[in-house]
């Protein structure tokens, strides 16, 4: 909870009886007929129906739900890019939506020119933009490229510029769709830091993610949409638990329907065409698979700002995860310098190893680095849970644990490579 005890609670977003009907016409001709005559046969699809909730200043809400439950429609309605068919949305102050970055950039104009134009689209006039420009340039790190046409940019550069632009002004309500895969990891970190700064300044955040990990760690409240209607709205944990149960039940039903009960490798992970094996994609539906715990053996207590010190020369990490049905998941691990470069990442499916199934059905892998070949420094570890093929990421605990390692010899460096003297 980020709101202060003495700050007055006030509603920044109020949604009442919100509904969105998509009229499906048999053909565009029917659509024209409907326009001209006012009546034509159409099928109604209610993407959202009777959704009501309120958000107070400083709250962070996570929106969860199956595919097609109306999450995107809700976000677009709140952002104002779609018009509701029924109901009302009351917004207070500035609403910024990070739906799809870079829409509206003209490829022939320079980054700077697009910055001013993009600003005017989201209500930042020329004078204000002139004031904001140095901050934006600093944040997006485009440097001299800013005066080149946008068509010469890499997709990462365009997205960086777009993110810097839309977040240049602190909004009252920030709407974020899906995981923020913006640019490289360095920039991703900056993005997350900026969003967290907004949040601690009292910005209300509404975000839609498939990662229960992120929702659990970021959100005060969660909204579960089911078939366009609110299934549950309230404190994060109970809603996530109920949703979790729902997805597990659905999985069981599907297995029963398939009449197999055996390995459910395809399940709901919609991977029609497997992408590049080295580019894992987020699972379309994370379902109930998640990392349960990551334990580091012999880790001391953290001292205030300083990370915990590893009290052994061995690094032994035990990762426990819940899989999906009878599918055997894969577990990944990554270690990086706390401030600096990545060192190594490993995964069971890459090493030909397999997690062991415990009695309660969860999976466990113990990863050991005997005589950890690192020099003294601060390191950060991440854990990942993949599906059986290693293509879909079910869950990730990204850079979730920092620790200090002390190498007894005072030699500078990062990694001790295998070597021999002769």
């Amino acid at each position: 909870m980020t709101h202060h005890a003495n700050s007055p609670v006030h509603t920044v977003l109020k949604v009442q009886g919100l509904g969105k009907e998509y009229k499906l016409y048999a053909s565009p001709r029917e659509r024209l007929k409907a326009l001209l005559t006012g009546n034509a046969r159409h099928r109604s699809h209610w993407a959202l129906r009777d959704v009501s909730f309120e958000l107070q200043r400083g709250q962070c809400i996570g929106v969860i739900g199956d595919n097609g439950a109306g999450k995107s429609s809700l976000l677009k309605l709140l952002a104002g890019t779609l018009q509701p068919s029924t109901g009302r949305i009351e917004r207070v102050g500035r609403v910024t939506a990070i739906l799809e970055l870079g829409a509206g950039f003209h490829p022939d104009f320079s980054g700077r020119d697009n910055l001013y134009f993009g600003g005017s689209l989201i209500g930042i006039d020329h004078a204000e933009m002139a004031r904001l420009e140095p901050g934006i340039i600093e944040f997006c790190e485009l440097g001299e490229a800013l005066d080149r046409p946008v068509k010469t940019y890499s997709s990462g550069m365009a997205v960086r510029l777009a993110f810097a632009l839309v977040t240049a002004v602190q909004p009252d309500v920030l709407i974020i769709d899906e995981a923020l895969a913006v640019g490289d990891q360095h920039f991703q970190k900056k993005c997350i830091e900026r969003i967290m700064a907004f949040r601690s300044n009292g910005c209300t955040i509404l975000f839609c993610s498939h990662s229960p990990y992120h929702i659990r760690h970021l959100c005060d409240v969660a909204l579960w949409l089911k078939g366009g209607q609110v299934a549950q709205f309230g404190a994060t944990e109970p809603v996530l638990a109920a949703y979790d149960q729902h997805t597990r039940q659905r999985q069981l039903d599907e297995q029963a329907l398939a009449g197999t009960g055996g390995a459910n490798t395809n399940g709901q992970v919609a991977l029609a065409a497997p992408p590049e094996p080295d580019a894992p994609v987020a699972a379309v539906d994370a379902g109930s698979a998640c990392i349960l715990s990551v334990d580091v053996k012999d880790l001391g207590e953290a001292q205030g700002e300083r990370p915990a010190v590893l009290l052994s020369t061995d690094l032994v990490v035990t990762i426990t995860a819940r899989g999906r049905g009878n599918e055997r998941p894969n577990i990944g691990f990554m270690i990086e310098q706390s401030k600096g470069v990545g060192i190594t990442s490993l995964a069971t499916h890459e090493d030909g190893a397999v997690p062991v199934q415990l009695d309660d059905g969860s999976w466990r892998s113990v990863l050991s680095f005997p005589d950890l070949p690192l020099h003294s420094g601060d390191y950060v570890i991440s854990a990942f849970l993949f599906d059986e093929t290693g293509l879909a990421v079910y869950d990730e605990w990204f850079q979730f644990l920092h620790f200090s390692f002390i190498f007894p010899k005072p030699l500078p460096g990062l990694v001790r490579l295998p070597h021999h003297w002769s």
Partner: protein
Amino acid sequence: MQAIVAELRAVWQARALVRVLVRREVAARHAGTAAGVVWPYLQPLLTVAAYYLVFDVVFAMRLGAGAPTHAVGTFLVVGALPWMAFCDAVSRGMNSLIEAGSLLQKNALPPVLMVARAVLASMVIYGPLLLLVALAYAPLHRFNLAVLAFVPLLMLQLLLCLLLGYLLAILAAALRDTAQLVGFLLSVGIYLSPILFPLSLFPEAWRWVLWLNPMTAPVLGYQQVLLQGVLPPASVWLVGLLWLGGLALALNVVVARSRDQLVDWL
């Protein structure tokens, strides 16, 4: 008329943005060229100059009795330039929504701004050219006070283009065939107007067909004002206003029926 009033209000409230959009639309038409902003103006100007050169200087063709002027090129330019402006504004207005589809789906902007941008950008290019023609025709109209009627005629044309452009933009969003059909109508429309031939040359029994072209009234008006220096007759204003009213009524209905789904169609 509620729907139209709401649209007008949306444009007015976002007038600063409309100005930026228009300026950029004009700039986008010559982005990457060396001559820059000259290009959008040069093309219609050269076409008009060609008419004058070919018909009046090289061939020195003459119109018969009953025409507002005798020089064919001079006559042609007065109708052809407003017609080019009309075609440009209407076709750009018609395509404005479809072209801005992804922009509208990702930004909370009223769709009408896209139509306003396209039509006004067209006017920014053709408006000065039309004024230039009005000045160039000074020897013909001798700066008679009637020439002031040129301004309301220009406004009439602008409003016609805005209403028609928006109406067609919505219809094109519903059914893409609209753009094909209108493209054809715009290319034959010049024959259903008193632009190439003076009204007096059309067979009496068929003249009513001309009034089906929304540009007939403004073109007659321009010819009266610029070629003869007299105020356009009441019929020009009456038909012009009828067209405006009819388009506004139709637009009002179409906007109200499409409002909450328009962006989904793009």
